[in-house]
């Protein structure tokens, strides 16, 4: 059960930030060095230790030592230009170590992937999408007037927008990070891309997307705009972004796009067959829970709230059909595991309660809100 996944032989995860480990590995005494490298242990071993009640004490002799070079970043980006086609692989226009190629979308994608890689590496101690240095591939200028960006299971694809409704999709760093984060969530968990599990998948991408942007801008939770895709909607469109994590349902209200359909509370949960069962609609609920957790805790959202959410998505109890209530409970347990019973745990609980999901020590419940179908 603890090893439900077969990969991640070398993946790095630890409580200590990598820069600290790197410093210890480079400058520490031989004993400190060995300890630091032990801490950078394999996922499954570390996970097993956590569940055995250990915190950072990776002192078991079964912990596999990793070579020192594993403590280095392995950022490896490639940007391909599809030149308006929808056929892969296109032309490689920029790879790691090269300067700007002069194509705006390609350079934005390159920088966006860099910021996202750095976020996962420096904040979460994760080495790329698969935790094992997976090269990052982005494809720009996909199609003509193409109004979308997506993750296809191994690469990120960005359209130029039609100019009337949408600008180019690389314009927003959080959108780039959103797509990359889909890779992370897919690698970590078996979440179905459907109904509540799919909305959680979507929410994870928004959470990490926003955190990458907040970190680059140096914004605290209070300063952050909590918007996803600001700048992406063309001038003529009535709206400020694709979504608002702080106030779901308020991002746009336009005669062509319609009104932002996101709920921010379980009482407004939308039951639909469209959009894979509302994955981009009901994600507003967990998005708001995250935003409120971060706001309650204050400071940099990626430091505590972000880490709690990241721990949750890596939790082996995440199942294909994990719903909001299950996930709420897992985030509360993650908070407790990481920080003990204290303000973090309380902030997470209160935030979920604000969106209509009550987590108690033993169970989680969703009060009946009219036509709401909890656990759909």
């Amino acid at each position, binding site marked *: 059960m603890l090893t439900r996944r077969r990969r991640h032989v070398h993946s790095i995860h630890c409580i200590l930030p990598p820069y600290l480990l790197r410093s210890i590995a480079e400058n520490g005494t031989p004993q400190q060095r060995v300890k630091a490298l032990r801490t950078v242990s394999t996922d499954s071993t570390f996970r097993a230790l956590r569940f055995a009640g250990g915190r950072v004490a990776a002192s078991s002799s079964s912990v596999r030592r990793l070579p020192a070079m594993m403590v280095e970043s392995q950022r490896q980006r490639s940007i391909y230009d599809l030149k308006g086609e929808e056929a892969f692989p296109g032309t490689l226009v920029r790879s790691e170590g090269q300067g700007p190629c002069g194509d705006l979308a390609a350079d934005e994608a390159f920088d966006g992937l860099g910021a996202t890689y750095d976020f996962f590496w420096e904040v979460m101690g994760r080495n790329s999408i698969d935790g094992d240095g997976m090269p990052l591939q982005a494809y720009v200028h996909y199609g003509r007037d193409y109004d979308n960006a997506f993750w296809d299971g191994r690469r990120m694809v960005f359209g130029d927008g039609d100019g009337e409704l949408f600008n180019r999709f690389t314009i927003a760093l959080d959108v780039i990070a959103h797509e990359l984060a889909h890779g992370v969530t897919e690698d970590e968990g078996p979440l179905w891309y459907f109904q509540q599990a799919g909305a959680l998948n979507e929410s994870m991408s928004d959470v990490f997307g926003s955190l990458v942007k907040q970190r680059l801008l140096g914004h605290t939770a209070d300063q952050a705009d909590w918007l996803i*895709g600001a700048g992406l909607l063309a001038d003529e469109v009535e709206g400020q972004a694709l979504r608002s994590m702080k106030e779901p349902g308020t991002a746009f209200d336009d005669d062509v796009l*319609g009104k932002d359909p996101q709920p921010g509370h379980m009482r407004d949960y939308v039951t639909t067959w469209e*959009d894979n069962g509302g994955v981009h609609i009901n994600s507003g609920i967990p998005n708001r829970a995250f935003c409120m957790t971060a706001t309650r805790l204050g400071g940099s959202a990626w430091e505590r709230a972000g880490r709690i959410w990241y721990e949750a998505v890596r939790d082996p109890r995440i199942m294909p059909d994990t719903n909001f209530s299950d996930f709420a409970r897992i985030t509360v347990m993650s908070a407790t595991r990481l920080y003990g019973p204290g303000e973090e745990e309380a902030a997470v609980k209160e935030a979920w309660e604000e969106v209509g999901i009550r987590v108690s020590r033993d169970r989680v419940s969703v009060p009946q809100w009219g036509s709401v179908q909890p656990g759909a």
Partner: protein
Amino acid sequence: MSRDSVRIQLSQEGGLAAFPGLARPRSVELSELPAEQAEAIEHGLRDARFRELPAVVGGGSASKGADQRRYTLTVEEGTRRHSVELVEPVEDPRLRELLSLVKRATRRRGGGH
């Protein structure tokens, strides 16, 4: 066929965000369009052999991935009606061209119903 009897309808779902306005089917009579645009769409329909296409075209078998999009394009000519679901990536360039033309035609501000 006479142009004023042809109605094109497009809806889409999926993609990076949910836009009710785009998911709602939007249709346009070719006769409402500028002649040049209407002719381009007629050409597009012929080139893509739209009327002969099966109900679903494109898409992979991938259970992976996120934010991908699908379109439903319907052409009504009098009592005849043909509907095709286009799942990304749409590989046939003629079909992509048609999709692009129809998107522009049905999304004009003040246009479409």
